[in-house]
């Protein structure tokens, strides 16, 4: 049992309503403490989460709406952490999709208490993170870039990419090669040659 201490910025705030929720047992890597908040979990200044088990939602469909109303427009990001613990989840999820649009909540699904806890931890620890991880600027080496480039057509695999470039010496030569030249490369069958030449020759935009 965590003792109520002075609210520090680095822990997850948990509403006493959540007492007994197995998710709490799984919250291990980030400290948490009970606090009197309107949401179930306080994950930072602008982020909160409400926890909803679909099993409970089916018995008390009005519960979650009351809770959302109580948030009173506080918090910028309001996560509705939904645990999918029934097998016929379709109806409920359909309803929640509409709710999220109307009531301005973000639905996040999880399938186990461990996963729910992980989401909570992630939200807390990413509170001040930058978004470069999902903006896709990965600084990989030349070899990986090259392999990635060549393997865009689905028929071509990594080994083919290496074979291609090592035969032609540079990517430009490989791009400029005739189909006959490419087909001599070890491992390059007809299908691959076609896929490659098509990808390289095909105009970016279909002609009007």
């Amino acid at each position, binding site marked *: 049992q965590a003792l109520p201490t002075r609210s520090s910025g680095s822990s997850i705030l948990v509403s006493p309503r959540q007492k007994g929720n197995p998710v709490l047992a799984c919250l291990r890597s980030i400290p948490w403490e009970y606090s009197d908040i309107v949401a179930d979990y306080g994950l930072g200044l602008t982020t909160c989460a409400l926890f909803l088990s679909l099993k409970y939602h089916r018995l008390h469909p009005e519960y979650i709406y009351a809770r959302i109303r109580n948030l009173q427009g506080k918090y910028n990001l309001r996560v509705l952490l939904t645990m999918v613990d029934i097998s016929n989840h379709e109806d409920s999820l359909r309803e929640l999709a509409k709710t999220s649009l109307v009531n301005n909540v973000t639905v996040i699904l999880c399938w186990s208490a461990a996963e729910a806890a992980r989401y909570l931890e992630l939200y807390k620890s990413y509170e001040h993170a930058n978004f470069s991880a999902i903006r896709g600027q990965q600084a990989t080496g030349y070899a990986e870039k090259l392999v990635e480039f060549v393997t*865009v057509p689905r028929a071509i695999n990594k080994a083919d990419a290496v074979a291609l470039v090592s035969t032609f010496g*540079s990517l430009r030569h490989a791009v400029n090669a005739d189909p006959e030249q490419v087909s001599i490369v070890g491992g390059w069958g007809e299908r691959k040659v076609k896929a490659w030449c098509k990808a390289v020759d095909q105009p970016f935009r279909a002609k009007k």
Partner: protein
Amino acid sequence: MSGAPAPQPVKLSLPLVYQQKLFEELRKEDELVILARGLGLMRLVTNLLHSYDAAGNNLIVVVNAQDRENAWIGESLAEHAAISMSPKARGLTVVNTDFQTVGAREKMYTGGGIFSVTSRILVVDLLTGLINPETITGLIVLHADKIVATSLEAFILRIYRQKNKVGFLKAFSDNPDPFTVGFSPLATMMRNMFLRKASLWPRFHMYVAQSLEGKKKAEVIELEVPMTDAMKTIQTAIMECVEVSIHELKKGNTGLEMGDWNLDSALLKNFDVLVRRQLDPNWHRVSWKTKQIVGDLTVLRGMLQSVLALDAVSFLQQLDTIHAAHSPPPGTTRQTQSPWLFLDAAHTIFDTAKKRVYAGTQKTTADTNIDSLRPVLEEQPKWAVLADALEEIERDLYFEPATRDDSNGTILIMCADTNTCRQLRDYLQTMHVKPRTEKRVEEFHDPDEDRPSATFMMRRRLRNYLKWKSEFAHVSATLFAENQKALRGAVDPRLAQSRGRAPPNKRRRMRGGGGGSVMGSGRMENGSVAQYFEKPNEVSDLMAEIQITEEEAKQKEDIVVDPLENMDDYYQLYDMQDLVVIHAYEGDQDEHVLEEVKPKYIIMYEPDASFIRRVEVYRSSHNDRNVRVYFLYYGNSVEEQRYLSGVRREKDAFTRLIKERASMSVVMTTDAHGVEDAQDAFLRTVNTRIAGGGRLAGAATAEPPRVVVDVREFRSSLPSLLHGRNMVIVPCMLTVGDYILSPHVCVERKSVSDLISSFRDGRLYAQCESMFAHYRSPMLLVEFDQNKSFTLEPFADLSGTAASVSADRAGEQDLQSKIVLLTLAFPRLRVIWSSSPYETAEIFERLKAQEPEPDPVAAVRAGLDKDEVVGEQAFHAEPQEMLAKVPGVTMKNISNLTLEAENIKEVANMTVAELDPMVGREAARKIHGFFNRDLLDDEE
């Protein structure tokens, strides 16, 4: 049925009884025809099309045809038209993205004729009313086996059948396998196609058997070729690797059903596909390692094939490439490498493959310690057999030179692919050339004196190989230098010492530098099999040894680039009057080859069940031609196994289909009005959970609900399902979003695999940005597959440590952490979770309730620059995707590039100065550098 007159004024080319029967059936009623492979499906289709073509005044659409088939249909329709001199025949018009504009297409459709339209275009044209379904005389569907309920083709058929109850509809397939998986698959398939009759024509069908076996059969000589010991060793070693990989798979995925993953099934042609399919429902959950092993299985299976198909030198070359490509990425240890590379068996593979090419003899002199290498150059056993067969044929021709029939006396050699073609041609050209130092005349007068051998060819290949290898060593050094550096840190000292290797801290990229034996050193410091790079002096020795013949070889030109077209070329073979034609199996095209070449002798270098049937058909179709077939296969090899199991599987599939059809007939007759009520039938098939009121309410409103859909989304099944739920689909070229539900609601659809990849390249982030710029309520739809498990939880243990959630490691985290980041970045982004496309359709319906309808014009405008013309600007996805991978290309400048440059080739050939105005100096240099970096001279 079409209104064509009963008497046929057309000339058909269907000589065999079963073909005629089938044709009559097809003229009479709509049906699904499943014909065994090799029995001439395309011939039937073209004849059928011609019979309609000749009647004129019609609009017939061929759905799901591949390029090659389009070419064939076009050609033979023209041919038929010329033969039967039908004035009304107009031939085939092919419609695909590249050329025709909307206006031109509309004009063509109203003109009528026979069209082959790409499915994606056809469905858009049908929805936009460019082609009126009611005016269509009939549809011909090829590759019917590919049509599942959610496919684009099924969507096309549904639109067609809704509006048009009288037009004909005939579906064809020559692949019975897909019709046997799942629950009552045939019935389901037929319902998808709104067909009520299935017509099955296996090889053992009565008419087929009668037509093919009634007269003289083709003479077949089977030649079982034993493999060499080295080949056997390699095959066994590969199988061992496969076994271990399977074991690893089982170990890593305990929760999955995989009882039938064993070595036997690993021999099957599509084992890796099978494994993949079994894992597919959970693909987004399995660990990275599992994915890698599945990839390894594909590689290993490829090796199984190439050890038989390729010559020893090429095989070694392929192994080198595979090995280089599978070296671990920088900064990783042995955990991330393919497990099979650590096996002794892997060592055996590489070692044996090398020994087939050259072996080392130790000549330790006092002052120098040089290993000299000598070429071994093992030949493929089939070559000698092939030469024997050719000789036998030659003798045969000599003793009975008078051909009593109208075959050409040509020898046709069939093999699996064009590479083998090239190999055989090389072999046949050079098999009597002896690499001797003394002067010798090339022509041979007495074939018995010289045994045919491939020495000449093999030596030439070895020379090329050695040249390649030295370049390759350089390239892979440049490419993978980082790996080696990284590996130095990650040494498993136990392994290194137990093998008595040089001190592990010594960096040795070049193997064999210090040790006495080149052959013995096989492992890298981390325990995986190391790449061999011979010392320069050894190589030069080897070169010197094989160089001798070079002068002599001068008169035979080294063929590097073949200007050959279509492989339909003929090679003169020495003193034979007749021709030897080498050709690769090409499915239905082989029929053409047989008809054109009219061979008297056929050598099947590799077994192929459907080609045997083609020969049977050819033989039976021409009374006056004699054919003798030589059939080569390696005994006890994967090749043999695969052939046999292929034949067996097809037979089983047909048997099951026949059984199902027998028990199904009742169901289909009670469903008499199925065609009329196509939509209900569809909904019954795809979804049993229709909320009773939902649909009625939708139908009752004055205006049916409308959804604007990006044309690129037609690759997915969702548009079809939305249409199935009575929504009006407006196909548009959208810049922002995939589906526009209302003026404010815009949806970006991502399947789980899309989601992963679009997180990786940052596409999703940019898409969200642009959605927020134009819409009030952007939504991200995470759509799971119908059959895939509806969860993101990985099989691995989730119980995280503090490190696993720390913010600075965000990049390499799992999907969950990226979703968290995305919602933090866009707090107002709504996430919809849907367990299947069917669910999505329902969710959309609900989301649209009480919302105003979207405006297509505004939707198209969104995201476009003001001066940009709103028009049909179809983009080709693949080249764009490739371009996006080039360093220096960003989401912003990519549109400039694609507007200015024509294709990848043009971008690759641009100078920095040319690129500069489009992307800026910095990016231009990056792009230029990416394409132009010369890996041969580059010193890092």
